[in-house]
């Protein structure tokens, strides 16, 4: 087949099975856009800002497990995409970003809309390429998808100079069905000796704890994790990124851990004698003070990325491998092993955990005359029957969503955990809705975050994406305000949102439905009304209690047993 560079790109995407490309045209990518125009297999979603394109592709990826694809132009197109690329990088999300570039003959001349995209994105991509010859296009694109989706996933940028896509120059094209790279060969199998050692340690535990993260989601190992954990009867906690990989309504699940994790999860971490970490990376928001982290525990760590092992916390039994493969091996060994968990010790351990549970650490004032943000999330959970895809922005609302929406399935909770990118939620929700047209999709946000990518309401209208926006409007950058209250003697420096728009009118001006809810008694009815509007985007502006804080809380750098339960109930 003789094709131009631009046609090769589009044909390749089709052959690779790409359904959607999220993008924004510009000079350097016009040839590619012209090729996109002349076919229907690959659908292009026009966003309103390149950051939105990356987050939408990211939402698509996080809710499907497939790579998200982005197409942006050179210069500002590429730089606007950087935040979304870094967001995907920090959370190990498979994404391929095609950036236009000025022609090879102009590179380095400070040409119009020229930026060193490969240089700028280098620290926040898994890998990137500059294509200097049209004959390399197909192979490079194949490598990009392969690298993005295998091993520990991540974003890959392919920078494509305009002359490489010249429609007048036709070259042969053949879809490269496979790829092999001598310098990149991820190995999914864990070491059998290490797996055996790990299982012996797990079975010998008296106060065991299982701590799992996003790696379980990305390895599609939810089923194996659930099976393994239930066979043992051990308590399990999930990180923010791992929510949904173990059913949250199961009795062995003791909630999220970390800075805003449950009392029982954090105390169990502190007191456990064996910790099994699965696809989690001992992030500082999880560990607190690493010197005081799990002080009594032998630690086993399963991770596909060797560099994650003993990075912040030294582990005793490392297992490098794909979580799914390793868990399958462990389940097989467990079935063959005569040794059973110590039932007496485990019963005592559960008694202790149940006592911690008894503190009811997520308790809040249900009789308040103001709308409590937690109550909105609880109602959202009830009305969507726990079946919705929930995206979130970053801040207090994100933590409340994580605490109060009980995710029973993976790929349902979509949030920017590592980078903490405000503005992520709405465009991500659009990507999720496109991937799952019939599903219920809600974006939990706040009046500060939503304004960072509010322009994507226009994209939602263009493609009829009936996302429900749950705006927890407390007129503050809530998490900033909370830290200022706790650590800066309530000096609320620049955290108050003055001159807010009328979100109802704003939503209406984009052609959507807007609702303002300011009484606790109206919350349920409003949510029901909104979710009944199956084909409309509804923007629900909940006027919430301005002073509500996220509890429990471990201050940065403190230990798991140094939790604040609420303003009245201080230390644990």
């Amino acid at each position, binding site marked *: 087949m003789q094709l131009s560079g631009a046609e090769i790109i589009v044909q390749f995407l089709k052959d690779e099975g790409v359904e959607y490309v999220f993008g924004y045209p510009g000079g350097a990518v016009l040839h590619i856009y012209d090729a996109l125009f002349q076919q229907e297999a690959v659908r292009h979603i026009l966003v309103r800002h390149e950051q939105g394109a990356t987050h939408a592709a990211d939402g698509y990826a996080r809710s499907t497990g497939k790579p998200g694809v982005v197409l942006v132009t050179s210069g500002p197109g590429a730089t606007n995409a950087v935040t979304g690329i870094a967001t995907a990088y920090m959370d190990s999300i498979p994404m391929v970003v095609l950036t236009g570039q000025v022609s090879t003959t102009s590179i380095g001349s400070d040409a119009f809309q020229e930026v060193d995209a490969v240089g700028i994105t*280098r*620290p926040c991509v*898994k890998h990137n390429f500059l294509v200097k010859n049209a004959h390399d296009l197909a192979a490079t694109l194949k490598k990009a998808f392969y*690298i993005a989706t295998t091993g520990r996933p991540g974003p890959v940028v392919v920078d494509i100079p305009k002359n490489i896509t010249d429609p007048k120059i036709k070259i042969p094209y053949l879809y490269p069905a496979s790829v092999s790279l*001598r*310098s990149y060969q991820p190995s999914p199998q864990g070491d059998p000796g290490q797996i055996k050692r790990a299982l012996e340690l797990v079975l010998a535990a008296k106060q065991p704890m299982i701590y799992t993260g996003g790696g379980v989601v990305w390895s599609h190992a939810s089923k194996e994790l659930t099976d393994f954990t239930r066979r043992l009867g051990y308590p399990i906690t999930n990180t923010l990124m791992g929510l949904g990989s173990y059913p949250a309504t199961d009795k062995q699940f003791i909630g999220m851990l970390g800075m805003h994790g449950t009392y029982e999860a954090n105390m169990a971490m502190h007191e456990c004698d064996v910790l099994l970490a699965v696809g989690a990376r001992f992030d500082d928001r999880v560990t607190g003070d690493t010197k005081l982290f799990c002080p009594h525990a032998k630690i086993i760590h399963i991770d596909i990325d*060797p560099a994650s092992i003993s990075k912040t916390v030294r582990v005793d039994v490392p297992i490098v491998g794909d979580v799914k493969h390793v868990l399958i091996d462990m389940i097989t060994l467990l079935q063959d092993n005569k040794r059973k968990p110590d039932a007496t010790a485990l019963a005592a351990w559960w008694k202790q955990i149940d006592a911690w549970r008894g503190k009811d650490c997520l308790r809040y004032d249900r009789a308040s005359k103001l709308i409590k943000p937690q109550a909105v999330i609880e109602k959202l959970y009830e009305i969507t029957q726990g079946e919705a895809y929930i995206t979130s922005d970053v801040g207090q609302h994100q933590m409340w969503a994580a605490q109060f929406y009980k995710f029973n399935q993976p790929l349902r909770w979509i949030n920017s955990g590592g980078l903490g990118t405000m503005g992520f939620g709405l465009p991500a929700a659009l990507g999720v809705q496109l991937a799952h047209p019939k599903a219920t999709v809600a974006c939990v946000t706040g009046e500060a975050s939503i304004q960072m990518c509010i322009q994507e309401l226009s994209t939602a209208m263009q493609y009829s994406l009936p996302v429900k926006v749950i705006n927890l409007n407390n007129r503050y950058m809530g998490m900033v305000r909370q830290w200022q209250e706790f650590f800066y003697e309530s000096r609320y420096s620049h955290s108050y949102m003055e001159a807010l728009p009328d979100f109802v009118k704003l939503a209406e001006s984009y052609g959507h439905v807007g609702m303002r809810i300011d009484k606790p008694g109206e919350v349920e009815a409003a949510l029901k009304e909104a979710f009944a509007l199956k084909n409309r985007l509804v923007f629900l502006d909940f006027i919430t209690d301005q002073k509500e804080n996220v509890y429990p809380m471990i201050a940065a750098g403190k230990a798991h047993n140094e939790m604040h339960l609420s303003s009245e109930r201080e230390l644990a």
Partner: protein
Amino acid sequence: MRHIISILMENESGALSRVSGLFSARGYNIESLTVAPTEDASLSRMTIVTRGSDVVIDQITKQLNKLVDIVKLADITEGRHIERELMLIKLRAADKDQRAEVKRLTDIFRGRIIDVSESSYIIELTGSGDKLDAFIAAIDPTAIVETVRSGSTGIARGENSLQIT
């Protein structure tokens, strides 16, 4: 501890900046870095001299291994190895005494005088970094016009080797 990390990497544009970028982004220190193609033109061999605790060195090697362009690496300081660095040093050598002194020191350090002018000598010296440091220390500092050092390269002794199998 001082470590010498030998790296085989794809000889692609930008590969060097991936490595140097990794070191600056993660706050690792680089004492020296050298790179050149190998007998296989598709591969470059890089030698990095760095310092850090065992934990830091472990992270450095893991993070380097994670870079897609890196094919293979080894910390050659873990085993018996040879380390060499090249230095070219231009010294003031105008009068007879100075010339004799420089010649004598060069012989002691087994260096070579490779350029002679009316007022200066250029000395070529190879050896470990310590040896080059010792030479500089032995020279009258006011006599040094300029110094060029290649950074250390190294290779494992005996059967051990860094190659693609």
